[in-house]
């Protein structure tokens, strides 16, 4: 085998999930001893690709070659034995076990009849740790270790399989700067030993710091692979975005009303720092940012679902502390989560029951539900929002995603909140229904509601928002008022990944 022969080669990998083509004819190769960055927007297909490489998923079409030989894995253990290990964001460690036990889980050295040779396991673990130059007590339980130490355990576990390819999925997500530098050192050590590292990250700084080459994925396709030295940050951002904004979005809001609520100095250790903003009646504000930048945590704090360290939430001129969601509802908030199935619809219950669940008090007479009134209101809502169903007694789980979302919006309409918080309003919804949801949201805003929208789809954020907040690492990195000129995807992306874009058209930064 020559030195130029790639360790790992993908050819025409395709993977389809119901309704989505997650990967479309992906071909790429990885060289021995390189750090290969893999970047792309949320949902570009990075995770799916890694899951195929590590044997969690099987591709619908395409081939994987390891050291020139075709391979296919039916589970992660097979991939590991062949030399491909993956470190997921959620570590695959047993927290109550010590370091050595985790490294050798299900490969425990034994001396016949299953009698474990724990000393051997510990010695081998120590040797592996020494190889990458780390000191760590192998008898300590994983739950007592810091995040980067747990990462080290995962790395050592991978090495114990004599890994030739190590995939790291967002390894920096939970690390401090100091720990990240340690991780870089370890990566460089591994690299010098000929291990290929596939490094997935949202953070461009990290790619430029550690990667030799970088591949950009978008909408399940490979946009390109380049040596990092040939790229500027602008080039990389441009490769990651560059989509035309679809034209099914309604016009922006016409007028901005009085302040609906205000957040001042909201902070939570390691999650949010000093968030302040105002939201006006009649406007839609979109919160953008890479996944895990604190968007959902922020709204959960506002809605009383998470405790925060300090800060004030001012509603109608008065400071109001919501200790739980019920109080937030009383204060005039409505909330549609990003997980419709688990935290939205009551799947087996009827449309009527789903619609009135948040405002049952209005349907009570002497403690009894007034069914007729419930049904009348349900019929009206179904007609108003054009909810396609066989009738108001149909279980909501049988509706399409778009119609389920309409049911959730109707649920809050019946309660008439002043502020509606919607996370991922059109996730898993087909294009036609998307346009309808957008129209409904805009009508709601025009009728004087304030809407706070979290979305990981940039087109949606740009198409819908009067103002855009871009979050990064728990802060609002920039505010873009779209009435002063439409934002570009590049502009949002560069704020989200922490790289100052040289704006051609003016933008406001707070």
């Amino acid at each position, binding site marked *: 085998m020559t030195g130029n022969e790639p360790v790992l080669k993908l050819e025409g990998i395709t993977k389809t999930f119901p309704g989505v083509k997650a990967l479309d004819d992906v071909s790429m190769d990885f060289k021995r001893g390189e750090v290969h960055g893999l970047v792309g927007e949320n949902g570009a297909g990075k995770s799916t690709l890694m899951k195929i490489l590590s044997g969690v998923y099987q591709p619908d079409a395409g081939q994987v070659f390891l050291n020139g030989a075709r391979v296919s894995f039916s589970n992660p253990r097979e991939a590991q034995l062949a030399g491909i290990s993956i470190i997921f964001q959620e570590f695959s460690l*047993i927290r109550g076990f010590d370091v050595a036990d985790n490294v050798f889980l299900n490969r425990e050295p034994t001396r016949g009849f299953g009698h474990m040779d724990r000393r051997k396991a510990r010695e081998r673990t120590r040797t592996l740790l020494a190889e990458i130059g780390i000191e760590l007590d192998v008898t300590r339980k994983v739950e007592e270790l810091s995040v980067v130490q747990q990462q080290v355990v995962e790395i050592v576990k991978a090495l114990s399989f004599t890994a030739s390819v190590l995939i790291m999925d967002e390894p920096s997500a939970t690390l401090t700067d100091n720990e990240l530098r340690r991780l870089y050192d370890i990566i460089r050590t591994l690299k010098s030993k000929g291990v290929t590292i596939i490094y997935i990250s949202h953070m461009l700084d990290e790619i430029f710091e550690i990667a030799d080459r970088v591949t950009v994925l978008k909408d399940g396709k490979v946009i390109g692979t380049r040596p990092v030295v040939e790229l500027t940050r602008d080039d990389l951002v441009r490769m990651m975005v560059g989509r035309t904004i679809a034209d099914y979005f309604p016009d922006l809001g016409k007028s901005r009303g009085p302040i609906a609520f205000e957040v001042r100095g909201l902070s939570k250790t390691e999650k949010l720092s000093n968030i302040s903003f105002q939201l006006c009646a009649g406007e839609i504000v979109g919160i953008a940012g890479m996944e895990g930048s604190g968007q959902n945590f922020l709204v959960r704090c506002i809605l009383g679902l998470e405790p925060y360290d300090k800060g004030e939430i001012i509603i109608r001129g008065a400071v109001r502390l919501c200790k739980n969601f019920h109080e937030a509802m009383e204060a005039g908030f409505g909330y549609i989560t990003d997980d419709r199935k688990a935290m939205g619809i009551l799947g087996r219950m009827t449309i009527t029951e789903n619609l009135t669940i948040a405002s049952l008090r209005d349907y009570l007479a002497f403690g009894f539900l007034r069914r007729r009134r419930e049904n009348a209101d349900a019929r009206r809502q179904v007609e108003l929002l054009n909810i396609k169903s066989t009738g108001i007694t149909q279980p909501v789980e049988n509706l399409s995603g778009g119609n389920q979302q309409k049911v959730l919006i109707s649920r809050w309409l019946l309660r008439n909140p002043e502020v509606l918080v919607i996370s991922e309003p059109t996730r898993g919804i087909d294009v036609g229904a998307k346009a309808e949801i957008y129209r409904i949201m805009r009508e709601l805003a025009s009728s004087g509601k304030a809407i706070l929208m979290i979305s990981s789809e940039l087109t949606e954020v740009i198409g819908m928002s009067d103002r855009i907040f871009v979050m990064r690492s728990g802060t609002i990195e920039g505010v873009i008022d779209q009435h002063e000129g439409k934002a570009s995807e590049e502009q949002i992306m560069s704020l989200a990944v922490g790289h100052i874009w040289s704006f051609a058209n003016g933008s406001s930064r707070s």
Partner: protein
Amino acid sequence: MKLTPFAHATSGRSSWLRRFSEPHIFVWLILAAVVIVCAIASPLFLRPDNLGNVFLTQPVGLGLATLGQAFVMISGGIDLSVGSLISLLSSLAAGLYRSQPGLNPLVVALFLVALGSVAGAVNGLIVVQLRVTPFMATLATMSLFQGAVLFYASRTIGGIPDSYRFISDGQIVGVPFSIILFILVICGFSYLLRMNRLGKHIYAVGADPYVSQISGIPVRRVRFLSYLICGILVGIASAFMASRLGGGGPKVGVGYELDSITAAVIGGVSLAGGTGSLFGAFAGVLIIGVFYNIMNLLSVDAYLQIVLKGAVLIAAVSFYSKRRV
């Protein structure tokens, strides 16, 4: 290149202290405290015959059943059928001797253990193959075994010969045979759980089935085996109980399912699976035994004892769940 050790790699606590703060070791300290309190509360408590009763005679039956329960709980399951299985097996032993008085005690005992393992295998298959949750599966077999014993013999049957009663009453060079048996069993199964791969996998499956699965551990086989082991241990417990009571009947194992779960939990076995040890669970058995004993010595009403036992269980569970946070 040698990196400096992580700044926070070594916490202040020494490994000794760390070990003592683990529930299954800490529980022995609790036992010691309970014993001291009891000694003060009642002068009768420290009398040798009472101590022998509490620490040697009484705990063997529940102890064996609790070891089985601990296996299942560590693997992430629960077994509600242990009590009715003990009733069923002890009755079968007595019935067997009625029809064939001359049987070799060893044959009868092995027969019970074999039947116990079959019952455990049934529980395991229902959980693993039919995918019934452990609670429901063993609730059903609890009813099944209890119904079977009532159908077989609606009241207590005696007739266990003296030769068989060696199991509970016999001595070897002055040491009660039941104690020797128990020590052998707890040491043997403890070895299996702590030093053998299977034991490691039982912990792993209980602690995190997903991680176990992606590590290639045969999760369902491990779950099945933990029920099988529980059945074997309950079989041994039944063999002992038949000997101690000189017979069997539908009421022999009453309360054992809850007592074994209570003892295991007090002894540091988590209901969520993945933690605990057999010796810890046995300490839980002794604490329950001491608890019943002191209640009797202080002439507390029998029904009130059950109320207090519930309170102790709540206290134990909340104590451990607080420590975990």
